[in-house]
C-alpha cells in the first residue's frame, strides 16, 4: 500500500469520520437518555443507531488495516499500553450495549415517548457509554505518546 501515498492518510481520515459518526450518533442518543432534548421520542431516535454501527464497522476495518500495516507498534512485544487500554474500553462499551439488551432496558426505552424520562438503568448505561467512548478516543490519541509505540 505504501506506493499509493494517499492510501494511508485516507484510512486515517476514514477512521476519524467513523469515530465522529459512532460517538456523535451514539452520543446524541445517550444525551437524550440523560434528559436532553426530551421532545425526542426514544423509539424513533434509536432508528439512527445503524449509523453509529456503520461508524464502528468503518473503524473496525480501518483499525485492522493499521494493525496489519505495523503489528509490532500495537501488539509488540512489548504490548502497547494505550492499545491494550483502548481495546479494553471498546470491549467494555460492547458489554454495556449487550447488558442494555439482555436486561430488557432496550424494550423499556423503546416505549419512552416525547417529554418522558428514561428509566434510571438506561441513564446509567448512557453515562457509562459516554465515558467509555471518550475513553476510547483518549487511549487512541495516546497511542503515539504512551509506551512509545510509534
Amino acid at each position: 500500500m505504501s506506493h499509493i501515498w494517499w492510501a494511508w492518510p485516507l484510512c486515517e481520515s476514514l477512521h476519524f469520520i467513523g469515530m465522529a459518526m459512532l460517538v456523535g450518533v451514539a452520543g446524541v442518543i445517550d444525551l437524550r437518555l440523560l434528559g436532553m432534548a426530551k421532545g425526542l421520542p426514544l423509539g424513533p431516535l434509536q432508528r439512527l443507531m445503524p449509523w453509529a454501527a456503520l461508524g464502528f464497522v468503518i473503524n473496525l476495518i480501518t483499525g485492522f488495516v493499521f494493525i496489519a500495516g505495523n503489528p509490532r507498534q500495537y501488539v509488540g512485544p512489548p504490548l502497547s499500553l494505550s492499545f491494550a487500554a483502548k481495546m479494553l474500553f471498546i470491549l467494555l462499551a460492547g458489554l454495556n450495549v449487550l447488558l442494555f439488551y439482555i436486561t430488557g432496558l432496550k424494550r423499556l426505552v423503546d416505549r419512552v415517548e416525547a417529554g418522558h424520562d428514561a428509566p434510571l438503568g438506561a441513564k446509567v448505561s448512557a453515562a457509562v457509554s459516554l465515558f467509555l467512548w471518550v475513553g476510547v478516543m483518549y487511549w487512541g490519541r495516546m497511542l503515539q505518546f504512551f509506551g512509545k509505540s510509534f
Partner: protein
Amino acid sequence: MMGLLQWLEGSSFAVWLKESPSIWAYPTLLFLHTVGLSFSVGPSVAIDLRLLGFGRRLPISPLDSFFKIIWIGFWVNAVSGTVLFVTDATSKLANPAFYIKMSLVFIAVGVMVVMRRRVFRDPDLDARPIAVFGKCLAVASIVCWFGAITAGRFMTYFAGG
C-alpha cells in the same frame, strides 16, 4: 506577519507545549481536539441524516437542542486548534491542506447557521416534508465536515507537516 508567527512559535508557551514530556501538554491538546471533533461533527451528521429522511418518525424540531453541543464542540476545537496552530504557525501556513481544512470548517459552520435560521425556525418544520433546500444544506454539511476531517489528516503528509 511572518515575524509575528515566528515570535509565537518561539514563545515559551509554544516551546513548552511542543517539547514538554508532560502528558498534559501536546497529547492532551490533541485529545481535546479529537473530542471536540466528535461532538461537533457527530451530532451535525445525526441532524443532517434526519433532514435527509432517515428516522422519519422522529420529530425534527427537538433536535435543535443539540446545536448547543455542536457549538461547545466547535469552540473547544477553535481554542485547542488555535493553540496547536501557534506551536507550528509557519509550517501550517505553508501547508495547502491547512487552507482547505479551514475553508471547509468555515463553510460547514456557515451551513449550520443557515440551517438553523431557514430550517429550524420554521414553525411548520414537523408539519410538512423537508424542502429541497434543507436537504441540500444537509448534504453540504456532511460533505464539508468529512472533507475538513480528511484535509486535517492530510496536513501531516504535506510539506512541513
